[in-house]
């Protein structure tokens, strides 16, 4: 460890928590683990969760991160925090104490978010980590019992649908009746046959494919459950990172650090909110919106906004013309594999289109809406992609359909309906 002890960290943490308390940040307790970079990469492969089932994709993740780290393409994150009560956070032991102070303040922001944002309620933080552990134990037992090849093939297939679950409909505010009505208009004849669309493809297959064995149904249930644990993080990426950044900034300012350390902190903070290449940096986007909201309404009002929004609604309401301009956002169309053409920029006539395009790529909008819409008499499972005009990646679509065909044990068809 660098030039500090665990005791130093405990003292820092106590001061930070006191300040956070004065700001009204109510949070889960945090358990920190200090680790070296290899342990960090190992933990990252499993999203920080201490026990997960065996699957090659975690090994792949390790290789990818390790390669990037090895070549200096990418540094490792300063921290990783796992949603749970208590929450689990990893610190890189080699970082100097000024970094750790910032990271701990940042973590408190996340943990406050986990505890209070309404869509995280479904993640059951108090026993989340235990459930992951039980899943790991069960799946590993299946592997021992039925063989790796068999279980792996089934896992690969089930994992391809892990995020195609009911959260989508809930969150997009698109009621089920509405979807059904649209189907009527599209295809007058099929009216009577069309059941209510089922959002959760995995659970539909589990409940309607009678040929599945018990262990297979069990795996589907577990994968679905794990998907639902991670979805809220996908849905609130910008809000959540912005929130954590906003609070580390405020907490550190309130700490009255000595000048030298404060400069170090500012340097690091600025690096965090710097755009990387031409990609939108969720930290700076979120941070800016929260800062603007604070100016307009004061800190106290922020907590309600945090509790009852997710990225799509948050940015739709609060990403103003000024902010789109300040961030120099632009929308683009791909030209070829290595370059893009600027379509709209953040001026009077263009900023709305830029914001709308951004909304298409944030939170749950980054996942295509695909539902079970019919079951034909010959057993063919009919899925419908409710398109907003974006194309599905062809190769991925084809292989995913193969996976679904394997889970379903019969033919699978994908229709496309263009939503208004």
């Amino acid at each position, binding site marked *: 460890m660098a030039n500090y002890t665990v005791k130093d960290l405990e003292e820092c*943490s106590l001061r930070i928590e006191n300040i956070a308390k004065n700001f009204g940040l109510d949070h889960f307790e945090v358990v920190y683990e200090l680790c070296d970079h290899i342990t960090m990469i190992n933990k990252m492969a499993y999203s920080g969760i201490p026990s997960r089932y065996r699957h*090659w994709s975690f090994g*792949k993740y390790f290789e990818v991160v390790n390669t990037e780290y090895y070549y200096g393409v990418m540094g490792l994150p300063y921290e990783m925090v796992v949603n749970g009560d208590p929450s689990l956070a990893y610190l890189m*032991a080699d970082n100097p104490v000024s970094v750790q102070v910032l990271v701990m303040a940042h973590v408190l922001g996340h943990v406050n978010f986990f505890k209070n944002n309404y869509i995280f309620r479904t993640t059951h933080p108090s026993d989340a980590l235990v459930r992951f552990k039980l899943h790991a134990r069960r799946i590993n037992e299946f592997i021992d019992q039925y063989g790796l090849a068999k279980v792996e093939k089934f896992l690969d297939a089930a994992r391809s649908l892990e995020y195609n679950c009911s959260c989508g409909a809930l969150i997009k505010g698109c009621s089920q009746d509405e979807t059904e009505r649209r189907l009527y208009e599209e295809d007058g004849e099929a009216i009577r046959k069309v059941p209510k669309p089922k959002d959760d493809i995995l659970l539909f297959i589990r409940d309607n494919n009678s040929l599945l064995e018990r262990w297979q149904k069990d795996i589907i249930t577990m994968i679905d459950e794990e998907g639902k644990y991670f979805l809220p993080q*996908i849905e609130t990426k910008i809000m959540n990172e912005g929130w954590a950044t906003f609070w580390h900034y405020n907490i550190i300012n309130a700490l009255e650090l000595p000048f030298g350390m404060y400069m170090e902190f500012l340097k690091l903070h600025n690096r965090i909110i710097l755009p990387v290449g031409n990609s939108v*940096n969720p930290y700076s986007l979120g941070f800016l919106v929260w800062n603007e909201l604070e100016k307009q309404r004061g800190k106290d009002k922020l907590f309600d906004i945090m509790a009852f929004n997710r990225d799509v609604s948050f940015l739709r309401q609060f990403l103003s013309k000024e902010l789109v301009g300040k961030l120099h956002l632009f*929308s683009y169309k791909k030209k070829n594999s290595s370059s893009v053409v600027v379509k709209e920029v953040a001026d009077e006539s263009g900023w709305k289109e830029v914001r709308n395009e951004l909304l298409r790529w944030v939170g749950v909008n*980054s996942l295509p809406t695909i539902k079970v819409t019919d079951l034909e008499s010959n057993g063919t499972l009919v899925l419908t992609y409710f398109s907003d005009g974006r194309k599905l990646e062809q190769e991925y679509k084809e292989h995913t359909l193969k996976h679904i065909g394997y889970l379903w044990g019969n033919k699978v068809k994908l229709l496309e309906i263009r939503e208004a």
Partner: protein
Amino acid sequence: MAIFHDITTDEKPDLTAFDRMRHKEKVKEAIKEHITDIIAEESIIGQSHDKTYRIPIRGIKEYKFVYGNDRGVGQGSGNEKRGDVIEKNGVHEELGKGIGNQKGAEYYETEITLEELTDMLFDDLMLPNMVKRKLKEIESQREVIFKGYRKKGLMVRLDKKKTVEQKIKRKAVLEKVVDEDFPFIEDDLRFRKRGVRMRKYSNAVVFCIMDTSGSMNTTKKFLARSFFFLLYKFLSIKYQNIQVVFIAHTTEAKELQEVEFFTKGEDGGTYLSSGQYKALEIINERFNPAVWNIYVFHVSDGDNFINDNERTTKVMGELCRVSNLVGFCEIDLADDVFYYSASSKIIHLYKNNLSGFSNFSMAIVKNKYDIYNAFRAIIKNDKQPRDQEAYG
């Protein structure tokens, strides 16, 4: 109050070990599909077995429903105007490809040893007729094995434990309490008995004959060496006991050491027959065809002096009679207009005169991607020489 655990000093369990291993297996399957690209890498030639390589590989994809990335939002400097073309930063994904919607890195690296690579290369290539080879197996290695105990032997092979056991047994049989002074007698001594087991191995000798004349430029030599390298690796996997003879020739032939063979360049005219006679000469001196599986491979650009054509046909025929397999690989670069007419002649010449030998094969390499195919084409023709077949 937060709790801190410093786990840097703990024993670090290798958490991802199993998943990495399984991933590696999947990668291997994928590598096999792109094998020609990898072996065409110059850097693998002449390296030792346990050297590891970090090689870029195509990612094993996890398929999900995802959007194509043909549009999106970027963050710029404020100077962007409609219609501007911007080079994408390849490293970082656009926003919105949240963790659920990531196609993931398409390319990354993994570590693999040359040994693993060659194993994978040759997994599906079998030497045909391995059964018929029995005649050519000779006892080539002595192995010392343990064969029990005996009462007489060299003191160095005394088994103390067994000897003590014997003494205890004898004491028990005497059925009287002797507290002290119960010495070892000669009958107690037990010695380990050793035997020798002969192991049978199939033996192979490979003749690598390379044309190093002036017309073989650097590219051609590289291709030739890649070919031999593959061959050498392949045969050393299939045979426990393999000898390789390296012959380089211009108008004269020389036997070389491995390192020289893979590095040395020469200049001059070409008599293909010179290298072939040299091989025949060495076979007669050192490798009795009755005991050895003989493989002869000749790589050249086929640019032979015309007055040598008759000789080379004749000696190739003789080589075919004593060998399991004779292969001729012609390096024929597409842009090599000057030598073109000459080179196709030698292929024709061999085709017309040696087609009677089922163990003779030819291949043409036009670029580095052809090497593996040429190699396969030649190896697949591996036949038992006629005089042996009667015994099969």
